[in-house]
């Protein structure tokens, strides 16, 4: 009958597909599928090479089903909605679930199937249809399966099967950062938790050891892993939902001190609903401020190598608490600011929503709003709100994590959690993160200012954020934090004035580092006017701080794109005295042809430039210096020198906007390579959030529909409910699920990109770190340095390998899709050949064995002929679904091209 057109058609379609497997009989959409053989036959139809039908035993219900689902997921890209255990447990499997799962097959692969309906078949179908029409459709009542993470029932639209466990899609998240996980990008760590790729990296980063990479990339539904339980956090997060929005922000601030995770749930739940961009920017603000503060704390870089280890140990104990407290202060303050802003923004929420989202999203948002305000309506609504809040946490985490370098995570996450050991955290953070963070931070600040739509961020930047909490505004704050290091740092440089050091101690941060060489190189720079050279008198007096300041003052105006830097100079660039004393040594460089010793070359070049810049000040020694300069240095270092000009200037230009901290360096530290980002983290996050919202909306709708279906079928009025309605709902549900799958795939794409970018950033960081170590003179290098360098190199190679894996994975997916397309092409060609042959012969023998594209038009006509009564509702639905299908097809077309 027409009311079962949708599901019946699906059944017919499946029947046709498994025709070549004689032992498979599909009589219904429940028990016929139970033993899994039918699913295997279905998969076999598309990829005979993947499943060997002869080896299947109908009695191995679990194995058959498991095989079919895993193969379909892995090779055909069909998400596993069904659980093999359900098949085993229930004599009559859930019809709705099976229908939904099969509809995914249809949606993905239906176009490759011969749609021609043989007359014999068409004759059969009306009989069967009429036979079945008498009995109403019954959806087997299976209790809805529970999510392994939160224990709540999982509806079809929300299903996510991972490693034998069923989850809500939204419950499946990283245990560290609560970011959403995709089955493709998660990692099992320590046997009982999931972490996302970035958190896993972060962990290994802190330890610089190779983790056990359990199928790092391609985790699918069927692997041997253990699940996690997150019921606690979800339950806790429910509590604040009932409060009205603006007030809850203040509540959040209070609750923040108790349970920071809870707070982020609430705050970002709200921001997620209507102020995504704002929240992202603010979370980034937070992260930048917290980062900057941590930078201030992590100054051991200043210290010479001998004292570095000691200080690290000292500081590592102090820093985390300080970071935590300072973070808390800042966060609290930021919260109050946010509260005000959000109140202001409440009026603009609606407009924002309209602007930002499509119709569907608007519905989602509206439903979300509705649910937030009045939770009591539907039980499921509450459960979905649960997920929503937990989802917000994800966004928070994602926002945080995406906007920060991998090493940043510990700062934000660990102070709240405090459970993690902080020493190991501090150790690598201190050593690695400091130099690159500044650059990124400033780049990030720039991006924030430019990319964000709202103005509040800039307001926050300049006006609302009080100076005393502004990490950039004062030196004192940072100095107080780590006074010991500063003092020590000034000493080595001062002492090196007299020492026979080729290279002054390593500076603290790249910004001061790069400024100094620029200052020195400015003399070589044709654009530098002579009159503004750093005065020799100041340098000769060895007045460290003043010299630095003066040089800074003179050098800044001439640097294109440079921004006013804070005058915190403590260690100055090598004064001419050094250069004079060391000039003779220039004649004996041991580094001429050894390309390996980059550091020496760069240091030499810096000294060359110093000499250059000081030529005028150093009267008599100048000519000799001049002469000596070209001689000892190999051609490479000369080119390095001039190249260093360009590169360092470029470095300055890139980092314009950064504020210097800490003592000035003496040596041009190797600059950190800038990573070209394909998509800015903010934009990425925005898109991910958007997809998340859309998926949420679809899931919610799917949940409602499923409930309606089940109620109608299992309720008391089951007999009286018209079957067409149920059919429609089923159709709707299937479509919803398919749309959600599409979104899920897009999300996977974005996650790939995000992961790629993260890895590249991390790689740049580690490279920089290695170069810093390498740039230290061999004399000063200690074994710890060498060991560290080795470890870093290994880590670097590991990261490159991970990036490669990503590329391979993307390629594998592409190849799979290409195979599908080839199947289409082949089937089209076959169809044409078939048509040609059929035009000759009159027989209507269907050639189902060979997959050919469906002649849907023919099938439509046949179906219309078969079904006499047509409800307007059904026909309307058909039009709607055909419209949607058309859109999807157009999308696919575009993708193919």
């Amino acid at each position, binding site marked *: 009958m027409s009311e079962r057109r949708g599901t019946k058609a699906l059944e017919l*379609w499946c029947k046709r597909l498994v025709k070549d497997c004689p032992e498979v009989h599909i009589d219904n959409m429940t028990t016929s599928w139970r033993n899994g053989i039918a699913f295997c036959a279905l998969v076999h139809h598309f990829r005979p090479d993947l499943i060997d039908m002869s080896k299947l035993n109908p009695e191995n219900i679990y194995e058959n089903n498991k095989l079919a689902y895993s193969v379909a997921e892995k090779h055909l890209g069909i998400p596993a909605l069904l659980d093999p255990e359900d098949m085993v447990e229930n004599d009559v499997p859930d019809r709705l679930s099976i229908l939904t799962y099969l509809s995914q097959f249809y949606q993905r692969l239906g176009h490759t199937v011969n749609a021609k309906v043989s007359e014999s078949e068409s004759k059969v179908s009306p009989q069967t249809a009429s036979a079945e029409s008498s009995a109403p459709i019954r959806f087997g009542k299976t209790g809805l399966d529970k999510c392994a993470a939160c224990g709540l029932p999982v509806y079809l639209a929300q299903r996510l099967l991972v490693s034998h466990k069923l989850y809500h899609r939204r419950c499946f998240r990283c245990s560290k950062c609560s970011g959403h996980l995709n089955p493709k990008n998660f990692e099992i760590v320590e046997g009982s938790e999931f972490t996302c790729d970035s958190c896993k990296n972060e962990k290994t980063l802190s330890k610089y050891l190779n983790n056990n990479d359990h199928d790092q990339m391609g985790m699918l539904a069927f692997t041997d892993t253990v699940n996690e339980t997150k019921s606690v956090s979800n339950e806790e997060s429910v509590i604040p939902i009932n409060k009205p929005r603006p007030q809850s922000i203040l509540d959040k601030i209070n609750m923040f001190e108790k349970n920071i995770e809870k707070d982020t749930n609430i705050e970002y739940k709200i921001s997620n609903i209507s102020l995504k961009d704002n929240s992202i920017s603010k979370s980034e603000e937070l992260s930048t401020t917290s980062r900057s503060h941590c930078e201030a704390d992590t100054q051991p870089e200043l210290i010479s190598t001998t004292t570095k280890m000691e200080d690290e140990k000292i500081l590592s104990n102090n820093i985390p608490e300080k970071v935590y407290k300072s973070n808390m202060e800042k966060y609290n303050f930021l919260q109050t600011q946010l509260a005000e802003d959000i109140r202001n923004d409440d009026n603009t929420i609606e407009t924002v929503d309209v602007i930002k989202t499509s119709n569907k999203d608007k519905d989602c948002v509206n439903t979300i709003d509705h649910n937030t305000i009045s939770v009591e309506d539907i039980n499921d609504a509450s459960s979905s709100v649960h997920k929503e809040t937990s989802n917000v946490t994800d966004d928070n985490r994602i926002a945080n994590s995406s906007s920060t370098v991998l090493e940043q995570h510990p700062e934000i996450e660990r102070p709240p959690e405090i459970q993690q050991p902080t020493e190991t955290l501090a150790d690598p953070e201190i050593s690695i993160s400091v130099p690159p963070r500044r650059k990124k931070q400033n780049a990030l600040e720039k991006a924030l200012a430019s990319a964000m739509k709202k103005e509040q961020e800039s307001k926050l930047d300049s006006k609302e954020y009080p100076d005393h909490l502004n990490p950039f505004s004062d030196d004192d704050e940072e100095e107080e934090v780590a006074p010991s290091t500063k003092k020590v740092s000034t000493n080595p440089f001062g002492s090196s004035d007299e020492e026979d050091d080729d290279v002054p101690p390593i500076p603290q941060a790249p910004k001061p580092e790069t400024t100094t060489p620029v200052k020195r190189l400015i003399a070589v720079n044709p654009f530098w006017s002579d009159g503004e050279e750093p005065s020799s008198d100041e340098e000769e007096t060895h007045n460290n701080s003043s010299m630095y300041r003066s040089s800074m003052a003179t050098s800044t105006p001439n640097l294109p794109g440079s921004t006013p830097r804070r005058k915190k100079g403590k260690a100055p660039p090598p004064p001419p005295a050094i250069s004079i004393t060391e000039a003779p040594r220039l004649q004996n460089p041991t580094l001429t042809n050894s390309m390996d010793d980059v550091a020496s070359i760069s240091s030499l070049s810096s000294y060359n430039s110093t000499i250059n810049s000081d030529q005028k000040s150093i009267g008599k020694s100048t000519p000799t210096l001049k002469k000596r300069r070209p001689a000892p240095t190999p051609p490479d270092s000369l080119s390095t020198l001039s190249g260093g000009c360009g590169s360092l200037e470029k470095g300055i230009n890139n980092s314009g906007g950064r504020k210097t901290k800490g003592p000035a360096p003496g040596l041009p530290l190797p600059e950190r390579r800038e990573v070209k980002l394909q998509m800015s983290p903010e934009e990425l996050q925005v898109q991910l959030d958007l997809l998340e919202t859309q998926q949420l909306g679809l899931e919610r709708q799917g949940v409602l529909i499923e409930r309606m279906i089940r109620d109608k079928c299992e309720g008391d009025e089951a007999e009286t409910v018209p079957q067409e309605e149920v059919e429609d709902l089923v159709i709707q549900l*299937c479509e919803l699920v398919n749309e959600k799958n599409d979104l899920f*795939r897009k999300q996977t794409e974005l996650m790939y990109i995000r992961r790629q970018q993260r890895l590249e950033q991390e790689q740049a960081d580690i490279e920089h770190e290695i170069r810093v170590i390498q740039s230290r003179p061999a004399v000063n290098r200690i074994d710890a340095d060498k060991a560290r360098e080795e470890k870093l190199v290994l880590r*670097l190679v590991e990261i*490159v390998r991970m990036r490669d894996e990503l590329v391979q994975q993307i390629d594998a997916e592409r190849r799979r899709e290409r195979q599908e397309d080839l199947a289409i092409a082949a089937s089209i*060609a076959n169809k044409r050949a078939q048509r040609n042959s059929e035009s000759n012969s009159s027989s209507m023998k269907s050639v189902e064995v060979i997959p050919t594209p469906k002649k849907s*038009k023919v099938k*439509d006509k046949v179906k219309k002929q078969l079904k006499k009564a047509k409800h307007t509702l059904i026909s309307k639905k058909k039009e709607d679904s055909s419209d949607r*299908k058309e859109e999807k097809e157009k999308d696919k*077309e575009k993708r193919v091209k």
Partner: protein
Amino acid sequence: MAKTYDYLFKLLLIGDSGVGKTSILFRFSEDAFNISFISTIGIDFKIRTIDLDGKKVKLQIWDTAGQERFRTITTAYYRGSMGIMLVYDVTNEKSFENIKNWIRNIEENASADVEKMILGNKCDLEAKRQVSKERGEQLAVEYQIKFIETSAKDSLNVESAFYTLARDIKAKMEKKQEASNPAGARSGAHQIRANEQQRKPTSWLSRCSLL
């Protein structure tokens, strides 16, 4: 997932330390040049997608460290490469002499049918040239490999070098495909290609109505 490319080729850059491998890659992938010498640590790769005869080809170009200490790391990446560029510095005789060692390296570690190409880099430094173009060409003829002189600094021949290598790889790949497929399928494939545009719209549209 959006299909953004048709092929993925893995290329490898090898050669002595300091000859300009990273610069060549940098020039090709980001069209930039950095004169300062920064030794590559271990290994790295960059990606760039190019258009070759109407097909999008994604090039994953591996950049190896020339230093001896990273030799074991870099050697591991020979195997998966489809094309290898041997780079020497025209202003450095030693690097040119080492080319034959590098070729031996390839023979030992890479797949047998890998596409090779010799690049003489830094050809802009005419004043310091130590290896003439003829010598380079002669060496290439000796090994039956293509030869190009490039300058990453002046962006000379870098693009064409990569395009040529990619084209050679693509041609080889297509030859292999043709060899494995029977000739009939090829004509079928042609038919498919010709009619795909026409057929696809109708088949997509017509598939809509089942549910």
